[in-house]
């Protein structure tokens, strides 16, 4: 059965989720990436959207802007790791509960997730059309002067996902654990291949005695 979380998100909604769990989000979802983090964390601006108990998406969408309404054409997650330097402060300042992006985030974010009760999740990369079709409506946009990809797009979404938990409220970090796992396997896996190419520097003998 699909697990669905609806905004606003209380701590109880996410406290028991663990890395690797999969769920879908309904309600409001708001985009914010490099520039939004910079403004809020470094320039001291107050977010025009109240992120308290809400969800943030690292993404720069393609929106078809019209006089009557704006239509979401394509919205794929961008690499979350770019926001690593500022995410912890962003969580502390805004009270955001769910952060969605591509790939993992680092130790600082994991600590903040544990301390302030937030999680980071992955939406599968490259699935921009599916994501766009889960956007029911674009309600409004803030900070449009930052350009289309960097603005705060406030979206109404229905069962947005799959979202795979990569950092949980206990501070577990899936990508950090995975990287360690891959690194540990590398030497052993390479060994037979290294052995097989050892003789490759020798000059090949012509097969004359055939």
């Amino acid at each position, binding site marked *: 059965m699909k697990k669905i979380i609806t905004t606003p998100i209380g701590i109880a909604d996410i406290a028991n989720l663990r890395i690797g769990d999969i769920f879908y989000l309904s309600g409001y979802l708001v985009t914010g990436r490099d520039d939004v983090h910079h403004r809020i964390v470094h320039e001291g601006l107050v977010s025009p959207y109240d992120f308290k108990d809400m969800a943030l998406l690292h993404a720069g969408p393609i929106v078809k802007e019209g006089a009557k309404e704006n239509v979401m054409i394509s919205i794929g997650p961008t690499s979350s790791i770019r926001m690593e330097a500022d995410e912890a402060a962003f969580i502390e300042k805004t009270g955001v509960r769910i952060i969605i992006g591509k790939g993992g985030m680092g130790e600082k974010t994991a600590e903040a997730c544990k301390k302030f009760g937030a999680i980071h999740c992955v939406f599968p*990369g490259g*699935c921009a*059309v599916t994501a766009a079709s889960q956007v029911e409506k674009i309600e409004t946009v803030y900070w449009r002067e930052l350009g289309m990809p960097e603005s705060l797009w406030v979206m109404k979404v229905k069962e947005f996902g799959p979202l795979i938990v990569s950092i949980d409220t206990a501070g577990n970090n899936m990508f950090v654990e995975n990287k360690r796992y891959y690194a540990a396997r590398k030497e052993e896996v390479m060994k037979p291949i290294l052995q*097989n190419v050892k003789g490759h520097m020798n000059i090949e003998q012509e097969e004359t005695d055939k």
Partner: protein
Amino acid sequence: MNKTEAKQALMDTMEKFLALASRRLPDDVYEKLTELRDKETSPMQKVIYDAYFQNLEEAEKLKRPSCQDTGQLHYYIKAGTAFPHLDIVEESLQEATKRATMSVPLRQNTINYFEEKNTGDNTGERIPWINWDIVSGGDELEIIVYFAGGGCCLPGKAQVFKPSDGYGAIVKYVFEAVADLGINACPPLIVGVGLGQNVENAALLSKKAYLRPLGTHHPHPKGARLEKELLEGLNALGIGAQGMRGENVAMAVHIESSGRHPATLAVGVNMACYAHRRGVIRFQKDMSYEILTYRGAQL
């Protein structure tokens, strides 16, 4: 057919072809992904593959680019010396790129160095990137278009080793690139390995390697064996789709090589993400064409 007619025909066909190639994966890649999907067992990997395929289906239905990052346009051309319209190819591709940027639409992804401003139409200094290979005596024009996204270009690297480092240096270099960087490039990947004399021919060959159709092998038996061993080895790391633990981090490893200098051993690694948007189209003298990567496709 005169110049103007040939140019018009090439522009029109390529604009439509770009739309198709931005949303559909080549048959060989689609089949490979289908095969890998069946091999994954964890629920998480299944969910990721389901999302990949659902997205491709929706992209086709809505006629939209499958991934939001439509990348930069690369054209790898095989031009017959007897193809009569060589002089209009470059400007036609420039124009088709501009038009497709608006009509598909493609994301605006080109910034000139030092100006640091988006050009807005995906053309710029030496962009779209065009690589020419001449086929002596041929009278056809084959164009491979590739949408090079940011996420999968990021892990690319090349280095020159000393012969005393041996072929082992190549193996280690490929593993490092994939295990440390490739996991963020939306696996399963096609890993291109270029072996050459110096840094630029290794890098160029790594690109040509990943543009090769799936199921093809390096012509030397040892090269073909290394491709297979690298593929099995990388997959044995357990990285899986999206770098989230699974059976397959790569669809293929392709090696292309050139002769080397006795004093050098150069290696380039280039990665293509699962959204391997590689479209191949071949034009005849009269500008009629054949689409090689999508069975039954009509423009």
